[in-house]
């Protein structure tokens, strides 16, 4: 059953991904991308990455795609017309894409480690909980959850982010701020140019 779901969501991801590339209408592309991201989020969740899956939907499929759609609507972009089709670019794209796909498939088929199944790489939550209870006494909730056989994904994510990558997180915050300022600067209409 899980394998069936995997194929379903992989198909959704790749199929709508293809739609993004092929669709003439930008609105279609944007909506397909949103669907593709939803499929991707499902794949994340199938990998026990609940937090990442959630923010994939919230940030990407939600915020970012809305931004895209908003811009497309705002600028009122029309579908591309047929006559402008660039054959060389399309041929190049197909060749490039297929060669890359074949390369990646070969690499992952050749490596023996890639034959690992989810069952073989099983999580041992109880053992992890015991270990964590022994080492990190300050975090009783995580070890309690783990001992009960539940994966407290978000809590563990937070632990990793704030304990191991605290500095990086702050840099990220700075980056977002710079981005915000940049957007404001870029969108400000230059009065002299406008006149």
């Amino acid at each position, binding site marked *: 059953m899980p394998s069936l779901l995997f194929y379903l969501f992989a198909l959704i991801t790749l199929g709508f991904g293809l739609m993004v590339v092929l669709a003439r209408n930008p609105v279609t592309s944007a909506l397909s*991308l949103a669907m593709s991201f939803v499929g991707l989020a499902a794949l994340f969740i199938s990998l026990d*990455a609940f937090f*990442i899956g959630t923010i994939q939907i919230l940030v990407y499929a939600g915020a970012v795609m809305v931004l895209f759609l908003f811009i497309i609507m705002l*600028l009122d972009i029309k579908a591309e017309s047929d006559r402008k089709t660039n054959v060389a670019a399309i041929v190049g794209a197909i060749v*490039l894409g297929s060669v890359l796909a074949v390369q990646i498939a070969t690499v992952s088929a050749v490596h023996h480690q890639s034959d690992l*199944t989810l069952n073989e790489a099983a999580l041992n939550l109880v053992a992890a909980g015991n270990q964590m209870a022994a080492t990190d006494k300050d975090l009783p909730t995580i070890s309690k959850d783990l001992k009960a056989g539940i994966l407290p994904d978000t809590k563990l994510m937070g632990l*990793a982010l704030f304990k191991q990558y605290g500095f990086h997180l702050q840099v990220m915050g700075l980056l977002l701020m710079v981005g915000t300022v940049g957007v404001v600067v870029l969108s400000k209409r230059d009065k002299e140019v406008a006149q």
Partner: protein
Amino acid sequence: MITLSHYLIVSGILFALGLAGVVARRNIIIIYMCLEMMLSAANLTLVAFSRFHVLAGLPDYSAQALVFFTITVAAAEVAVGLAIIVALYRSKQSVEVESVTKLQG
């Protein structure tokens, strides 16, 4: 049974799709979307590796932290990029890459 290579192949195809889109499409907004797709393909790889690399009974959360950062950067990038597109549209009345010819020799 689903193995690691299944995820990797899905991610690879998604990346190839994105690359093909960047090369083939002329609409800058769609090129942007394809870039996002390529980033997400990389994220899928990271998450898959995180899950299959079991550390003390848990997934490797370092990889997921990296994915978190990637998503953050991508969001910031989209915001700035779209602002640039809007500025571009204002001066050229177009979002086709052919309209941006200032750098052509």
